[in-house]
C-alpha cells in the first residue's frame, strides 16, 4: 500500500481544478456538478466548495446512481442497493460536470452520460476525476484530471474520505475493500 494522494494535495489540486473550470466556463453561470454515486460524492462537494470560494456562489450539486444504466445491469447483485439519484434542477441548456473518483474502464462514465440524458438535454457534459488510470475499454477521456497514474495489473486504487480529507491509495488487488459506509481508516 502506498499513498497516491494525501488530503493536502487533493485540496490543492481541486482548488486548481476549480480555477480551470471557472476559466473555461466564463465564470460558470450555467454550471451544474453531478457526482457519480458513491465514489464521486466527496470530491464533488469539495470541488463545489472551491467553486464557491472563487465565484461567491457554489453551482447546484447533484448525484447520480448509474446501477440501472450499467451494461451489465441485468446481472444483478442478490440484494442490490441502489441509491436515489438527485438532480437539483433542470439540465436543459446547462453545462454539466460529471465528477467521479477514478476513471478506469470508462463504462461507468458511459452509463452516467446515458442517465444524464434522461434528465434533460445539457448544453455540454464534461468529466472531472481525481485519478485517471490505465485500463480504458471505451473511447472516453476526462476534461479535468488531478493525477494520472499507471497502475500495475495486481494493484488497484482506493479513494476514501475521512476526517482529514480525501485520500487516494494504491493497494494490492488482493487486499480487502472497504465496503461503502464502513468507517474509514485514519491514515497518518
Amino acid at each position, binding site marked *: 500500500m502506498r499513498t497516491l494522494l494525501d488530503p493536502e494535495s487533493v485540496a490543492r489540486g481541486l482548488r486548481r481544478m476549480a480555477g480551470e473550470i471557472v476559466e473555461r466556463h466564463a465564470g460558470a453561470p450555467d454550471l451544474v456538478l453531478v457526482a457519480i454515486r458513491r465514489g464521486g460524492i466527496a470530491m464533488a462537494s469539495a470541488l463545489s466548495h472551491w467553486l464557491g470560494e472563487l465565484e461567491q456562489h457554489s453551482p447546484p450539486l447533484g448525484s447520480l*446512481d448509474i*446501477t*440501472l*444504466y450499467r451494461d*451489465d*445491469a*441485468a*446481472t*444483478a*447483485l*442478490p*440484494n*442490490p*442497493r*441502489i*441509491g*436515489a*439519484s438527485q*438532480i437539483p434542477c433542470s439540465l436543459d441548456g446547462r453545462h454539466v460536470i460529471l465528477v467521479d473518483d477514478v476513471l478506469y474502464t470508462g463504462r461507468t462514465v458511459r452509463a452516467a452520460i*446515458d*442517465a444524464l*440524458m*434522461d*434528465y*434533460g438535454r445539457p448544453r455540454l457534459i464534461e468529466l472531472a476525476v481525481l485519478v485517471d488510470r490505465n485500463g480504458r475499454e471505451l473511447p472516453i477521456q476526462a476534461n479535468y484530471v488531478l493525477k494520472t497514474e499507471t497502475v500495475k495489473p495486481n494493484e488497484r486504487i482506493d479513494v476514501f474520505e475521512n476526517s482529514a480529507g480525501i485520500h487516494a491509495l494504491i493497494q494490492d488487488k488482493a487486499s480487502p*475493500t472497504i465496503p461503502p459506509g464502513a468507517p474509514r481508516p485514519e491514515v497518518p
Partner: protein
Amino acid sequence: MTQERIRHLLGIDDLNRETAEGLLDLAESFLEVSRRPVRKVPALRGKTIINVFFEASTRTRTSFELAGKRLSADVVNIGGSSSSTSKGETLRDTVNTLDAMHADVIVIRHAASGAAHYVARHARAGVVNAGDGMHEHPTQALLDSFTIRQSKGRDFRGMKVAICGDIAHSRVARSNALLLRMLGADVALAGPRTLLPRAIDSLGCRVYDRLEPALEGADVVMMLRIQRERLGAPLLPALREYARYFGLNAARLKLAQPDAIVMHPGPMNRGVEISEEIADGKHSVILNQVEAGVAVRMAVLYLAASEPGEIATPSDS
C-alpha cells in the same frame, strides 16, 4: 451467498424480514424513476415479461405493465377470455408455451389459490404472483408497507394497523397481515363474523367482529373492498347494512390516532366500505398507494428478471 435472490415472488412466505426490507429499499430508488421527465431506465432491455391475467384486473395489470416498461422490458399482456384457456388449454400447456417463447418473467393472476406456485414449479421463467384466489397478493402487501413507510417511517414496531372488511375472502388482507407481522407491526383484523376465516388465529393478529375496537388508537386503517359478487349469499345481507356497521366514516375515524392514514387497495365502493369524505380526505393515502405500486413492482421485476447464472456475490468481488 449470504442473501438469497428473489427469483419467484409467490407469497410473503418467500420473504424474510431482511429480504422484505431490502425489496422496499430497492423500490425507493425506483420511485424516483417515475417522477422524472424521462420515466424509463434501460435496466431490463431485451428482457421479456408476460402478464397472464386469468382474472380481470385493470389496476394491477396496468401497474405491472408500466413497471416492466419503465425498466425497458418488452411487456406482453394475455387476458383470460382472449387466451387459449377459453379454448380448453391447460395451465400446464400455457406455461410450456410461454417458456418456449423465452419469457424471462411470468406475472400471473388466477382465481385458483396456488396457481402461481404451480406455474413456478413448471416454468423456467421467474414467476410473480399477482393474486391467486383467496391465497396471496404479495406485491399489494409490499406496496402497502411501502406507503406506510413513506408516512410513518421505517420502524414498524409498535405500529397499530387495522385491516377491516371481508377478511375471509381477501388475499390482500392475508398477505398484508403476514408482511406487517413480519415487519413488527401490531395488526388488528375486523369484519362481520361471517367474513372472518376459521383459521384466523394462525395469522397472529387481534381479531374483532366490530370495527370500533380495531380502530381504537390505530396508526394505519386499511379498508378492504367489499366484493359485490358475495352479496345475496347468506354471508352478507345488504350494502346499506354493511356500510352502517362496517363502513369507515369521519365519526369512526376519530377513534384512530389524529394522524392516522387511511388506505384502500381499490377499486373503492364509495359510500359502502369507505365514505366519500374519508376517501378524498386528508388522511387518505390511496393515490400514494397507486404510485408506490409501480415502484414496488419495478423492484420485484428487476430481481425476477436478472440472470440466475451470473449473480455476483460479495465474495466474488
